[in-house]
C-alpha cells in the first residue's frame, strides 16, 4: 500500500497468456492494481495515453516483430522498450523476468534503465521485494 492509503499499480508486459494470467492474479493478491499487455508496443501506448504505474514487470524474451526481422532469443525488445519508456520520462520501477539465468545482457539492460531482473517464475518473495522497494521510494 502506498503512503496515503492508495494502492500501488503494476503493468505486466508478456506475450504469453499463461504468464499474464498468473502474474496479474499474483500481483492483485498483494493488492496491486494491475493491467496486462502483450508486448512493449502496447505498454508504450498506455504510457502515451497518460496511464502511470508504480512498477512495470516485463518479459525479457518477448519476440517483437520489427520489419522482416525477429529479435527472438535475445532481450533486445526489452532493451528497446526500456529505453523508449525512459526517454518518455517514465521513471517508475521496471523489472525484467527471464527464462535464462544471469546473462551478458544484464549490463546492457541496466544501462537502458532496467532496475533489476529475476528468473521466472514471479513468486510472492519477489513481489514482496518489489513492494519493499516501492514503499522506500514513496516514503
Amino acid at each position: 500500500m502506498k503512503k496515503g492509503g492508495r494502492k500501488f499499480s503494476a503493468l505486466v508486459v508478456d506475450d504469453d497468456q499463461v504468464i499474464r494470467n498468473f502474474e496479474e492474479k499474483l500481483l492483485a493478491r498483494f493488492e496491486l492494481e494491475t493491467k496486462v499487455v502483450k508486448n512493449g508496443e502496447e505498454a508504450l501506448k498506455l504510457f502515451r495515453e497518460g496511464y502511470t504505474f508504480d512498477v512495470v514487470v516485463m518479459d525479457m524474451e518477448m519476440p517483437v516483430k520489427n520489419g522482416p526481422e525477429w529479435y527472438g532469443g535475445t532481450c533486445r525488445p526489452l532493451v528497446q522498450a526500456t529505453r523508449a519508456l525512459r526517454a518518455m520520462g517514465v521513471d517508475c520501477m521496471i523489472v525484467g523476468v527471464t527464462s535464462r539465468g544471469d546473462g551478458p545482457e544484464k549490463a546492457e539492460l541496466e544501462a537502458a534503465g532496467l532496475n533489476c531482473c529475476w528468473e521466472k517464475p514471479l513468486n510472492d518473495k519477489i513481489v514482496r521485494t518489489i513492494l519493499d522497494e516501492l514503499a522506500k521510494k514513496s516514503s
Partner: protein
Amino acid sequence: MLGLSLDQLRTDMNRLLAILFHQGVLDEQFLQLQQLQDESSPNFVSEVVNIYFHESEKLLRNLRALLYLPISLSLLLYLINEVKMSDVLCRVDRELCDYKKMEIQLNQLMGSSSSIGAQRLRNVCIAFRAASNHNNRPGCLRALELLEYEYCYLKNKLHELFQIEQQRMLAAAVRYPAPHQHLNNPQA
C-alpha cells in the same frame, strides 16, 4: 456415505499431488498457483493450466515442424537431383534448422512451464535449448521426443487431478447444500 466419499476424494487428490511432487513433475510453484485460487476465481488453477496446455501444444507442433520440415525440403531437392545426399544431411544439421525460431518457442514454453510449476518439462526445455544453441539437431530430436513424453504425462495427471477436484466439489455441494434450498424445502 457421502462424508466418506468427500474424505476419500480429498485423500486421492493429496496422494496424487504427493506423487507428482515426489517425481519432480511439479514443484512448489504449483502450490503458489493453488494459493491464488479463491472464491472470486474458484477455477483459477484449471483455467490457467488449460490455457497452458492449449498454448504448449502449439509450441510443440512448431518445434516439430522446425526440426522436421527442413529434412522434407532437402529430400525433395535430393530427389530432383539438385543436391547430393551427403549435402542434404550436412545442410539439415547445420543450416536449414532455424535454431533462432526454435529458441523463441523454447523460451515461451520454459516460461509458461515454470509459471505453473511444471518442473520436469522445464528441465527438458533447458536441455533442448542447450542442444539448439550448439546447432545439434540429433540432440534437439531426442529432447523433443522427451518433451512430448513429459507433456503427455503431465497433461494426463493434471486432468486426473482436476477430475477428482470436480468430483470433490460436487460431493461437497450435495453434502452442504446452499442455504436457500433449506428455506424453499424445510423438509430437506
